[in-house]
Structure formats: structure tokens, C-alpha cells
């Protein structure tokens, strides 16, 4: 299957001017400005196929949003190749723009002072959606997201969750083939997040749309994406199946056991690193390859009522990948 999105060696550098703090710094910057080059994206490459739903994760400032902005044609790349649906996004051809959408959790395209319906009607004209298709898509989306009652209310009076849903509708009315979602669940409560996730999944499956999703919530990524791209300091650290993250970055496995009798904790030290000791519960980290042997040893030597070999939690691994330590 052909790639819908193709990125090769993409770079985006920003020139930012640095100002020393305080009034003195401000005055100084009037006369001599220091510029510094920030490498927001520093040579990334990847491909995304039709119907794929990719999680784009990384710490703040890793370059996730910048990448999405380059892919949607907002930013002009410093170097590298981008092709989305066989278009160069930067050319901003109408034919291209009619097939994509970028939703940013912290940005709104809805007309603030008017009911959401007005934005929908304007988008209908701008994207040249036929009357029939508009009605059908709108009805579907309105039902899926349960927003029937709020379409006639001024956008500024809506709650964050309601607004986010309307944002999503406005972004999806033209049934984009490629969808960039930047923190779509930010600021939403747990129930709402879940609904949003279900909706994204459904949209992905029904329209075979390619979706890139960035999120701070691991739940979003865990539930929606099979493949993740981890980006840090403008570089791709990992690209592959979510489960593989664990194998790649987690050198250890966790053995957690429940003891029948008190044991001196020091005795576990020869087996592995003690992560937790709270009688009767003990958690020991052991090298991945050595896990079965260690478990056998423990069973032989100690009075154990229960024993489990577990993978470390994915959140922990990713956190450690970002902080630069191996687990």
C-alpha cells in the first residue's frame, strides 16, 4: 500500500532572540540582540500508510506540534522532504487542504461570538461540501458526539468539553483523509476523554483515514495506537509497535512476590535490584534474560505464596526514555 505521508530528513530550525531577564535585559536587547538557533525538528524520517493511526509522543518541546505544523503546510521546513497525499503541504493547494485537517486542543477555529452552527455553515461553503453530504456528515457527527442541543449556543458560552467536540466537528465536516490531532483530549475530564477516544477510533475505522495523534495522556495512545513514534529533542527515538517500546527500552523485568514469612531484605540483593519492599509484598527488578532463572531461584530459597513476572509500566518506560535513563 502506498504511503499517505512520507517524511524524509525533515528539519525545522527557528531563530529566536534571547533576552536577559529584567528591565536591564530589555534595554540591552534594544541595542544588541542575541539570536540562537533552535532545532525544533532535527532530521526526522517516517512513513504512514492509509488508515494508520499513529501516536506521536514526546516531552514538551520535543517537536511534535512543529512536525504537525510542517505536515499540514503551516510551517515552511528548513530542509528535507515532505509528501502528504502526494502534495507538498507548503504549496497549500486547495485540493490538498480539502483533504486534511489539523485540530489543536489549545486553538480554536470556531467563530467565538457566534453559535458553532455558523462556523459549520461557513466551512460547508469553504470546503465546497454538497448540501446532501453536509447534512449527512453533520447528523452523524452530532449524534456520535452528542452535541445536538448546543449547536445554537454562542461558542464562548460553551464548556471546554463541548467546545472541543464542536471543534472536532468543524474539522471533520469535509471528511479529511488525513487528520492531525494535537492534544485533542487536553483539559477534558476522564469520561469525556474516553468518549473522544472512542470517536477517534470510530472515525479512523469508518473512513480509513490516516491519523497522527499527539497526547500527553498515555491512555490515549495505549488505547488508540498500535504504532507510536517517540520524538525527543527533534529526533526520532523510536518508531514501531507500542509493545516493542517495552522490549527495546526496558532492560529489566519486574518480579513481584508475596512472602509467607518475614525475610531479611538483604537476601534478595544477590538476585536483583529491590524496587519495593513492604512486607509481605516485594518487587525486584532483574535482567530480562535472567528473569526465569531468578524466579526459579526465588521459589527455591524463599517462602513465597505468590509470584509474578511483569513488564514495567509503559508510562514509566517512556518517562525514563525522556529523562535519558534506561530502566
Amino acid at each position, binding site marked *: 500500500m502506498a504511503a499517505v505521508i512520507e517524511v524524509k530528513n525533515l528539519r525545522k530550525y527557528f531563530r529566536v532572540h534571547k533576552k536577559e531577564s529584567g528591565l536591564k535585559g530589555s534595554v540591552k536587547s534594544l541595542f544588541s540582540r542575541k539570536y540562537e538557533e533552535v532545532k525544533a525538528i532535527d532530521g526526522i524520517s517516517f512513513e504512514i500508510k492509509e488508515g494508520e493511526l499513529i501516536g506521536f509522543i514526546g516531552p514538551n518541546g520535543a517537536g511534535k506540534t512543529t512536525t504537525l505544523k510542517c505536515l499540514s503546510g503551516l510551517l515552511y521546513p528548513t530542509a528535507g522532504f515532505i509528501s502528504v497525499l502526494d502534495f507538498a503541504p507548503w504549496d497549500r493547494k*486547495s485540493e490538498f*487542504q480539502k483533504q486534511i485537517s489539523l485540530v*489543536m486542543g*489549545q*486553538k480554536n477555529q470556531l467563530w467565538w461570538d457566534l453559535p458553532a452552527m455558523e462556523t459549520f455553515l461557513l466551512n460547508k461553503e*469553504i470546503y465546497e461540501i454538497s448540501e446532501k453530504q453536509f447534512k449527512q456528515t453533520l447528523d452523524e457527527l452530532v449524534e456520535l458526539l452528542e452535541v445536538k442541543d448546543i449547536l445554537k449556543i454562542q461558542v464562548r458560552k460553551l464548556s471546554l468539553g463541548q467546545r472541543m467536540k464542536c471543534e472536532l466537528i468543524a474539522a471533520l465536516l469535509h471528511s479529511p483523509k488525513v487528520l492531525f490531532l494535537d492534544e485533542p483530549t487536553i483539559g477534558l475530564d476522564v469520561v469525556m476523554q474516553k468518549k473522544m477516544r472512542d470517536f477517534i477510533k470510530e472515525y479512523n475505522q469508518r473512513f480509513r483515514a490516516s491519523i497522527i495523534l499527539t497526547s500527553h495522556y498515555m491512555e490515549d495512545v495505549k488505547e488508540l495506537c498500535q504504532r507510536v513514534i517517540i520524538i525527543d529533542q527533534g529526533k526520532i527515538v523510536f518508531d514501531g509497535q507500542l509493545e516493542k517500546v517495552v522490549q527495546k527500552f526496558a532492560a529489566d523485568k519486574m518480579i513481584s512476590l508475596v512472602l509467607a514469612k518475614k525475610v531479611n531484605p538483604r537476601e534478595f540483593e544477590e538476585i536483583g535490584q529491590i524496587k519495593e519492599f513492604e512486607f509481605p509484598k516485594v518487587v525486584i527488578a532483574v535482567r530480562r534474560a535472567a528473569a526465569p532463572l531468578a524466579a526459579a531461584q526465588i521459589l527455591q530459597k524463599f517462602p513465597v505464596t505468590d509470584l509474578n513476572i511483569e513488564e514495567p509500566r509503559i508510562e514509566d518506560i517512556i518517562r525514563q526514555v525522556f529523562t535519558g535513563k534506561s530502566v
Partner: protein
Amino acid sequence: MKILFVKFLPVKVSKYFQLAKITFEEYFVYRLNFFLWRFRSFILFLSLFFFWLAIYGQENNFLGYQKAQMLTYVVGIAFLRSLVLGTRTGDLAGQIRSGELTKLILKPLGVFSFCFVRDLADKFLNLFFVIFEVGLILLIFKFPFYLPKNPATYFFFVVLVTLAFFLYFLINLILSALAFWTEEIWATQWLFGVIFLQFFAGAFFPIDVLPAWLSRIIYLTPFPYLIFFPLKIWLEQLSAAMAVKAIFIGAFWLIFFYWLVSFLWQKGVKNYGAYGG
């Protein structure tokens, strides 16, 4: 009936029609805001009107203008302020700064067309009220409004006003484009908006009441082609040759600004950081 009308328009036009509609709706949300704006414009008109009325007193001739001509000039200012200087394009600078421009450039709709349509809506709405306001004053004071005698004058007037209309649109785009680089857009907008523009455009008084050397310098800038020259043509104080010359100089500025706008926007959009979010 309305729906039918929209349907028969080619799709491309209905896009702009909808945009104009939504712009009007926005004005109706902020009715008070709009009425205060109209009130301000009306007061400005009244002060100019009474100022010149007082200056002339019993005289009929002053600074080369007959009383009727001067008062017609003041009425002309009120009209051209809406027709030429009415704009929403100034909002662009703020949108560039805040990153709101993002939502515009992601859509299959030109940023310039977007602004142009909103400008039209603004002009239309303001013009509607100006006709009403000025009409009221004219009825009350019953002064002789100057109507051109030569039919060619109307032609020249329309040409120059159209020129002014586009000229001002381009000037606004240029000023907004500065926001791609500078953070202090308010300073530039205020300086240009209030001092250069309104003063040099003749939006307070006719420029030729100034010393000749000063007015000659001002004629070289693009500003008097916005209000002063169209009104001079209306008052039939320019010979045909001079009118043609004014149109040529205005057209020169138009072409130059057109080039400058394309240049600045191409550079600027590349520089655009799409901040926020």
C-alpha cells in the same frame, strides 16, 4: 427565496457570500460596539461640519473654497471614511501575532479574499449608516450640496475612488505583514493610521489649505489619493489633465503596493511561526 439565491450562485461565490453573512452576524452580536463606533464617526463629522460653518460665518470664500464646496468636502470625508477607510484588514496583524492566522491559512480560502470580503461587509454596513446620518444633517441645515456639472467628473470620481479603495486595502495588508517581523505593531499602526494616513489623506481638511511646499510633498505620498483627490475631482477643482495625472500617480502606487504586498507576504508567511498550541 434567500436559499434559492445562494444555490444558483457558483460555488466559489457562495463561499464569500457566507463569509459576508457571518461578518454581519458578528456585528449584530456587538451592537453596542458598533453603535459607539458610529457615534464616534458621527461626532467627528459634526465637529468638522460646525467648525467650517463657524469659520466661514457670513463669508462665502475662504482658502480657495466656496462655503458649499468646503461643506461638501466634509460630507465627502464622512462617505469616503466608510467607503475607503472602512476596514477589517487591520485585524490581521493581531492574528499574525497571536497565531490565529493559522486557521485561515489552513483552509482552501485565500487570506486576502477573506479580508477583502470582510472589508466589503464593513464598508457596506457603515455606508448604510452614513447615508442615513449625513442625510439627516443635510435635511436639517439645508445647505447647498455641491453636485458636479460635468458628467465626466462622475466617471473620474468613480475611477479614483475605486483606486483608493484598493490602495487602502493594500496599505493595510502591508502594515499587517509587518507583524511577521516586529512585535510592536500597535506603534506602526497608530503612527500610520492616525498621523500619516488621516492627516495626509485629507481626512480632516483639504490638503491644499496647507502651505504649497508642504502639500506638494504630500502629493508624492500615496495618502492623498485616498480621500483628498477623489473629493477634489468631485468639487471640479482639478482640470481633466490634473485628474488624469492623479489617477496615474495613484495607479503607480497601486502597482507598487501590489508588488510590495506579494513580496512581504511571501517572505512573511515563511517566517510565520504559527505560535500558540
